[in-house]
């Protein structure tokens, strides 16, 4: 405006008034637009979903989807089930719908629920093994595509109907989906399950040679109550469930992936006695080489641990004994890795991402081997090196026995 040639004052004032009016009406317009979103949803009109289970119907096609919806009013109670004035009403509501696709099943929920389902806070998607055997991506596509659902939702596998998991007692939590979330986050204290979220699953699924894994959750009856239990890992190859790893094999998998964050190893001592060592820090280095047609894998694990419990009366605190313990733990770790390798080779499923390592670090070799990767993976030569350092004894040196018994 600065450089405009000056008009005479009279016309200028008219212009000013006109502009002011225009500006005023503009402001009014923005008021209308800013006052409310077009598609607004208030909290009291939402059904906040915390857990979703996907299952196949007993007969016919499509999917059966169960939801765990939180009753916000029941959550607020300070203690146990009598809190909040809600009396005996459970804090969650389980809903089950069906439809030809997961998306339609989700929408069909509106036929039963008075409020529209809100998925942005969903914690976990639980898939039954039947769905997993048929193909996971078709069931998962909706969760990736939908703008409300997020890719950090946990993905789990359950052998039975997922609705049982959603309906199980939640232990100390009020809502079992939140309990599932905590169970998974606590994997670092055992390192016997491998957490996978939808984003991780998609990422691995995009890799040509890799196979996916999913944690398995099941329901266990304890003192008359149905409680949750994390139990091993399912192996998914080409989007279909092909087998499972037990806790030991899962630990082996985690060692190779470098995802062990904690947990314990129990070693056998002479005379049937045992000692349990706690893993404090663990670091893994994997190197994959392809020489001609032969794949060679070198796995190097470095662990720092501490003595956590022993069942013998021997004094294990001497330097010699500690070294022996370290060697024994190294053996246990190697066994775990070997067990996982054996299972993976049996399924011909590259759950460790050896092929992906080649893709990233030796692209020409990957190009050469990718066509028959299954065969190359099964024939891979694996060299394992474990280095354990037992650093601590805890608060006591030796068990509380008179010295004579301890020393032999």
């Amino acid at each position, binding site marked *: *405006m*600065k*450089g*405009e040639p000056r008009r005479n004052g009279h016309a200028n004032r008219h212009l000013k008034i006109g502009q002011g009016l225009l500006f005023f009406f*503009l402001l009014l*317009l*923005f008021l209308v*637009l800013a006052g409310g*979103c*077009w*598609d607004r949803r208030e909290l009291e009109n939402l059904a906040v979903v915390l857990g979703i289970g996907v299952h196949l119907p007993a007969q016919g096609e499509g999917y059966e989807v169960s939801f765990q919806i939180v009753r916000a009013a029941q959550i607020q109670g300070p203690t146990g089930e009598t809190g909040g004035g809600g009396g005996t009403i459970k804090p969650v509501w389980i809903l089950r719908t069906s439809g030809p696709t997961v998306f339609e099943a989700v929408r069909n929920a509106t036929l039963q629920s008075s409020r529209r389902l809100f998925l942005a806070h969903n914690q976990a998607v639980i898939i039954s093994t039947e769905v997993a055997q048929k193909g996971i991506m078709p069931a998962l596509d909706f969760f990736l595509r939908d*703008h409300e659902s*997020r*890719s*950090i939702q946990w993905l789990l596998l359950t052998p039975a109907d997922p609705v049982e998991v959603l309906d199980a007692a939640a232990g100390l939590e009020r809502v079992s989906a939140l309990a599932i979330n905590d169970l998974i986050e606590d994997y670092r204290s055992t390192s016997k399950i491998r957490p996978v979220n939808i*984003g991780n699953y*998609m*990422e691995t699924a*995009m*890799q040509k040679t890799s196979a996916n894994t999913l944690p398995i959750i099941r329901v266990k009856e304890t003192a008359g109550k149905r409680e949750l239990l994390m139990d091993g890992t399912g192996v998914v190859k080409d989007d279909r469930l092909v087998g499972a790893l037990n806790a030991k094999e899962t630990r082996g998998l985690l060692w190779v992936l470098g995802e062990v964050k904690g947990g314990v190893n129990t070693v056998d001592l002479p005379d049937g006695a045992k000692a349990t060592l706690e893993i404090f820090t663990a670091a893994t280095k994997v190197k994959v080489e392809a020489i001609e047609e032969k794949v060679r894998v070198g796995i190097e694990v470095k662990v720092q641990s501490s003595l956590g419990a022993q069942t013998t009366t021997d004094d294990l605190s001497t330097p010699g004994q500690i070294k022996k313990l370290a060697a024994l733990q190294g053996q246990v770790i190697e066994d775990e890795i070997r067990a996982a390798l054996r299972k993976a080779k049996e399924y011909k499923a590259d759950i460790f991402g050896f092929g992906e390592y080649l*893709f*990233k*670090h030796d*692209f020409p070799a990957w190009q050469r081997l990718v066509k028959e990767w299954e065969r190359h993976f099964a024939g891979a030569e694996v060299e394992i090196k474990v280095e354990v350092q037992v650093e601590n004894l805890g608060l006591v040196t030796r068990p509380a026995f008179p010295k004579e018994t301890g020393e032999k």
Partner: protein
Amino acid sequence: MEQGKISAGELALLVMSFTIGSWVVLPTGIQAWQNLWLIIFLGLGEGLLLIYFDLALFRRFPGKTLFEIHELVYGPFVGKLFSLCFLWFFLQMGGGTLGIFVTLLKTTVFTATPDLALLIPWVLILVYGCRQGIEVIARSNQLLIMGTVGLVLISILLVLNIFNPENLLPFFNLSFAEMLWISIGIAAFPFGQNILFLMILPRVNRWQKVTGAVCKGMIGAGLVLSTIQFLAVGVVGKAGQILVFPTFEFYRLINIGRVLTRLELIPLLNFLTMGFVKVILCLYALAVGTAHLFNLRTYRPLVIPLGLFLLLVAGRIYPDISEHIRYIQKVQTFLVLFFALLLPLVTLGVAFLRRLPRKGMTP
């Protein structure tokens, strides 16, 4: 005509915002994925070369807009025809950019909102800003680009816990031909679209500094885009290849202790401001160009109708997102190269043959 003047520094920042513009939302060459952040630099080099050619026109006719140059070189009638082609180009560029951002908003946040409810407020601000002239646009842009650069720097910290450098490997798994082709696509979009600045350069107070400023702006934009793509690859990994809006998705994944999550709206708003600068410059070039075409004294009365026109184009230019993606992959490179390489070269050639500019021609 407009008398406002901007400095070379302001021009550089305008170029930067304009280049970041819509590429940051809907990138080209996504098939290269983990190599893209490197290919951007190759594309930047080619883009700099391209724009250097285009600026040769301006250096030959300093102080003239592209449309004035057309008339000087081809005479009034043919020159206006050339200018009309460029008007169409600016219109589809502005409309397309506006369209992208409406699509982004519609797919990610405001799923049920009608297009017009998103477009109308936007166009109102565009028109208002454009009527204020280039000085105001340039100054408001200074603030907006600072926000974007700041955001990119902050996001480096935010993604530290989810950034996996392994995702960046292997660095080169494409054949040279593929890489070259993708880099040309990047040289065209976003860098080649800077041909639009030939309409704005005469507004710079010292024309000798123009070439350096434009190059600086493009290099700055290249760095920002490469950083964003670098972070996106490290965070999203291979899965990013199937995402419609990879940059948006990577901000969705930010998760610091399950507390600092769902930050995607902040970059979304920020990218919107870059798109805003791009569209407002398109609108400005359209208005100034049209005014020149019809020998008007001022471009201001044209802004409102052209803004409305832009709104209509934005709503209709791409019937769906898949058309848009295909346009970016298959058509855009040729289209931009036609306008940013071929036509300026022809003009330059004709000017050379006619020994223009002659002495005494410049008023």
